[in-house]
């Protein structure tokens, strides 16, 4: 079992890439700050690599999980107007989303 990280492994470019994947428009100042902080955090959490885990099954939930199905009974949902009242933008009784297609489309 090798320890997967050396200190400072997470570069500024990698943080920028991860932020893009997570849809975070981080600033240059944040990139500088986070790269250093996350390198230190990654160094600490990489300790998990020290554990001897041959034949150990992973735990996703601490309690036994079984699929839960409910009775197939129709129930009223929240009224449309109530739900749309919390939306940042609504139009014609629907969520209005930002532009999803480019100019050429």
């Amino acid at each position: 079992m090798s320890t997967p990280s050396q200190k400072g492994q997470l570069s500024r470019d990698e943080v920028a890439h991860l932020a893009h994947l997570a849809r975070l428009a981080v600033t240059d100042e944040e990139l500088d700050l986070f790269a250093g902080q996350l390198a230190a955090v990654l160094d600490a959490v990489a300790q998990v690599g020290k554990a001897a885990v041959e034949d150990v099954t992973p735990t996703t939930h601490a309690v036994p999980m079984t699929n839960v199905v409910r009775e197939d009974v129709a129930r009223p949902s929240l009224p449309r107007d109530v739900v749309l009242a919390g939306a940042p933008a609504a139009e014609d009784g629907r969520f209005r989303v930002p532009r999803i297609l480019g100019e050429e489309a």
Partner: protein
Amino acid sequence: MSAINSDVTSMNVDELQAALADGATSVDVTRAYLDRIEAADGELRAYLHVDPEAALARAAEIDAAGDKSGLAGVPVALKDVVVTEGVPTTSGSKILEGWKPPYDATVAARLKAAGTVLLGKTNMDEFAMGSSTENSAYGVTRNPWDPERIPGGSSGGSSAAVAGGLAPWAIGTDTGGSIRQPAALTGLVGHKPTYGSVSRFGLIAFSSSLDQAGPMARTVLDAALLHEAIGGHDPLDSTSIDAPLPVLVECARRGADGDLSGLRVGVVRELGGDGHADGYEDGVLESFRAGVARLESMGAEVREVSCPAFDLALAAYYLIAPSEASSNLARFDGVRYGLRVGDDGARDLDEVMALTREQGFGAEVKRRIILGTYALSSGYYEAYYGQAQKVRTLISRDFSAAFDDVDVLVSPTTPTVAFPLGARVDDPIAMYAADLCTLPASLAGVPAISVPSGLSEGLPVGFQIMAPALADDRCYRVAAALEAALTADRGDRGFLDQLAARQGSAS
């Protein structure tokens, strides 16, 4: 006010119930708390939202109904992670500023059905990510024991509200220690229930396999009362355990009798014991040892227990929780609720989403989303997230092996007393260390309670009692015994009397 005076805000809930049954009105009780909030919350900033008119109207409604039983008419505060129909809910984040949920969380609905009066929503670290409440987008909350110090976190608004007499009790949530740690730092009792025993429906999700709501209260008995009111199976939460809740109030009452003969107590070496005391304050360890000795004096058999995998709990937690958070927080996309930034018709969905999340989330939330995204990404998944899940199994195995030999495990709740505001905000690793003792029970899903064991340098110290899954009653029994013994030793009415005495002498 007739039967009630300002002393109401220093009453335990069982005393409030007696006063209400004896003719006090919920309006009087509620007004006493609202007055206290008006007087003290300018400094403490425990609440994010208080609606005095709504609270008094609700109290009047309860009075008019004439129901004097159970929790009818008793005020309560809710951490702002609990969604409440028509009442602003932010989870401490700018991204949800102004949002009014269209439904109630099960916890909120059950408290409403029991006749409680909602005083307000309490401050918290943004999306419950933090140990000091300094990560709130709405400013810091101060510790009533020392306003220059943190009230703990992430349920720091709830802890400050209850310790400061701004609520008789409050709901907190605990993902890695966020009920127990703030309770410890403010001299309260806080219990993290067995995972799955209190519904998560309507809690704004941080780390779904770890999040649990639970009580924060002035006494063990009050905590048990509140726990019974919110606990039990909920078909709306697919991880809810379909089993009856153990009897908790009765256990708390019996525990206070102080007979622990036959109880086997394990002191966890890895949480402050020999060779594992780095970062622990001497005053905390002294208070903890005195608490253990007090359990022994009541007949408990004490032995040291080793749980080697606990040394890796912090590393495993700070991979698992950010990984789950990076996925859970994807719902904040600026489409269905909350903030939307930059939607000018020129920018596309991806850009609007990225700008919305950039402006809506604070630094700690962004750090954890980035870390979680990394830990779950192809090529790193096995080394980080997969490995952390296996460590989680090892921690559960250590608990199981320990509980073959002992009935409960004990440790300090936190390595230190409340630290000064600002001391750790720029150092994530130092901040994470505040959760050192509470993380193992979170990862294993077992119940754990924090009860005050004394003061160190004038600040409260918490004593943690952990039990096997579904044996929450053991936590209450042992905590009640320790609480009763220490109260008798001091000769006062309860731990918070020490804070009241200090404030009395200062004014």
